């Protein structure tokens, strides 16, 4: 009966937020218990777009399964693919050419900026400002065009193959990336002017949804969400992969753990990514863009785990091979899933408007959670 009336016995309202709701950015379903405007409990119900990519991958070859990961966290598709390719390379003990490594990192950082830019617009929209969303798309579009030119697709690139990248970068790549760097440097202060400095935005985010360092670790939060709480969990620093150990960049660590801090960490990260791109764009070494591989890949028996830092955090591929043509078992550790588990803890006691702001700052991508 309680379910039917939609109130608890304490007289609190039970509301379904989603699966179709403007603030969930996808088909996330939250059942929230409201006491007036105050949120008492949030209970995520997942699975609306669960495609069981893990099961699918068990019947795909080592070349084929990579494409499916683009469909998980579609905003950092490139970085997901990187993790998969790395897991296979670990198994095959493949040496990836230097040029391919640099291209991978370059594309990865461009993807990260594209993802953060979109998040910036979406977060502002969650809080009620519509204009930033369109401004964000201006810069995102430039990155998408670069991707389209070099990788052949805008969102689900599938540019990674085990041993390197699918094709060499486009001749226009240098020029367009430089144009982007110039444009982005000019526009970033505008972002701050429009949103960061805005007093309403600050009031909406400061001190809202505080996640302490201990809780962030315990909940397995990673990426900007974890770092805003003071956890140094940037995989690029703590367990460097690719050529990140040779690059000069900072791990942005916040202190407050509130929504504003998560916002600032992402804004700073965009600048760091830009810094990485600037370092690399003129120093792409000559050479092969792909290592020589056999037509049919057979990963030796064993277990391989590769971790990368996607735009949302610690993405892991746990690959169990029995030596066959297909993986025996694949587990994708998605950052969104762990971050979402901290949502209930963070939101309790906040207002319903804060729920939206906090969800925006967690930067949830639902296919990443549902896999």
């Amino acid at each position, binding site marked *: 009966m309680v379910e039917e009336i939609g109130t608890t016995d304490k007289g609190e309202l039970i509301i379904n937020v989603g699966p179709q709701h403007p603030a969930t950015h996808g088909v996330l379903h939250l059942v929230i218990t409201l006491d007036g405007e105050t949120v008492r409990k949030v209970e995520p119900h997942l699975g609306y777009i669960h495609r069981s990519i893990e099961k699918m991958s068990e019947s*795909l*070859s080592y*070349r*084929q*399964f990579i*494409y*499916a990961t683009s*469909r998980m966290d579609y905003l950092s598709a490139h970085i997901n693919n990187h993790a998969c390719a790395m897991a296979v390379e670990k198994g095959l003990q493949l040496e990836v050419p230097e040029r391919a490594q640099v291209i991978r990192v370059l594309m990865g950082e461009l993807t990260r900026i594209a993802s953060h830019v979109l998040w910036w617009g979406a977060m502002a929209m969650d809080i009620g400002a519509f*204009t930033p969303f369109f401004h964000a798309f*201006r810069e995102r*579009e430039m990155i998408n065009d670069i991707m*389209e*030119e*070099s*990788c*052949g*697709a805008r969102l*689900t690139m*599938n540019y990674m*193959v085990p041993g390197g990248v*699918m*094709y060499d970068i*486009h001749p226009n790549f240098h020029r367009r990336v430089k144009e982007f760097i110039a444009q982005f440097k000019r526009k970033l202060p*505008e972002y701050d*002017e*429009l*949103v960061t*400095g*805005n*007093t*309403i935005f*600050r009031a909406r985010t400061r001190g809202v949804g505080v996640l302490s360092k201990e809780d962030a670790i315990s909940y397995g939060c990673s990426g900007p969400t974890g770092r805003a709480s003071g956890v140094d969990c940037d995989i690029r620093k703590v367990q460097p992969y690719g050529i990140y150990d040779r690059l000069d960049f900072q791990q942005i660590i916040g202190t407050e753990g509130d929504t504003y801090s998560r916002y600032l960490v992402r804004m700073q990260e965009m600048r760091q990514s830009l810094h990485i791109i600037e370092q690399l764009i003129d120093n792409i070494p000559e050479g092969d863009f792909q290592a020589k591989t056999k*037509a049919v890949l057979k990963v030796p028996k064993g277990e391989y785990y590769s971790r990368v830092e996607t735009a949302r955090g610690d993405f892991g591929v746990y690959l169990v091979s029995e030596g066959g043509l297909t993986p025996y078992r694949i587990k994708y550790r998605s950052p969104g899933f762990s971050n979402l588990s901290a949502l209930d803890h963070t939101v309790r006691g906040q207002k319903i408007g804060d729920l939206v702001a906090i969800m925006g700052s967690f930067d949830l991508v639902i296919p990443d959670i549902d896999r």
Partner: protein
Amino acid sequence: MFLTRYFSEIAEAVGSLLKGMRMTGYYFTHHKEIITQQYPDNRATLVLPERFRGEVVMTHTDNNEHRCTGCTACELACPNGTIKVVTKFEVNAEGKKKKAVDKFVYHLELCTMCNLCIEACPTDAIRMAQTFEHSVYDRSQLTRILNKPDSKLQEGVE
């Protein structure tokens, strides 16, 4: 002092709001910054990069010849079962029976444009086209046969 703090708070808040309004006001008055593309009016001038993956097509020469030997490498490479190569046996000039492609069935509705088939193809028979307007009213229209009727295998392709 309470009052000075009170008023400086207000001044700061108003200042930050005005900054934002200056930003939007700038874009309101500078229409050159508008980035809208007038699709589909700009179809004629729309240039897609040559690597853009729109759909799989088979290249045919002017003599209606293609390069597909029917080896099914693409079919094996495809993660979604998008491609189905139906082969037949053809008797060639020397009287030998030889495997050749009968129908190259391509399910666009299943395709994820991952490019793995193109990479797998040993004879460069198929490539990605830059078309992207794929919407049709009936799903069956998306199942295509890529080799043209009566097309032949190009000379010298093994």
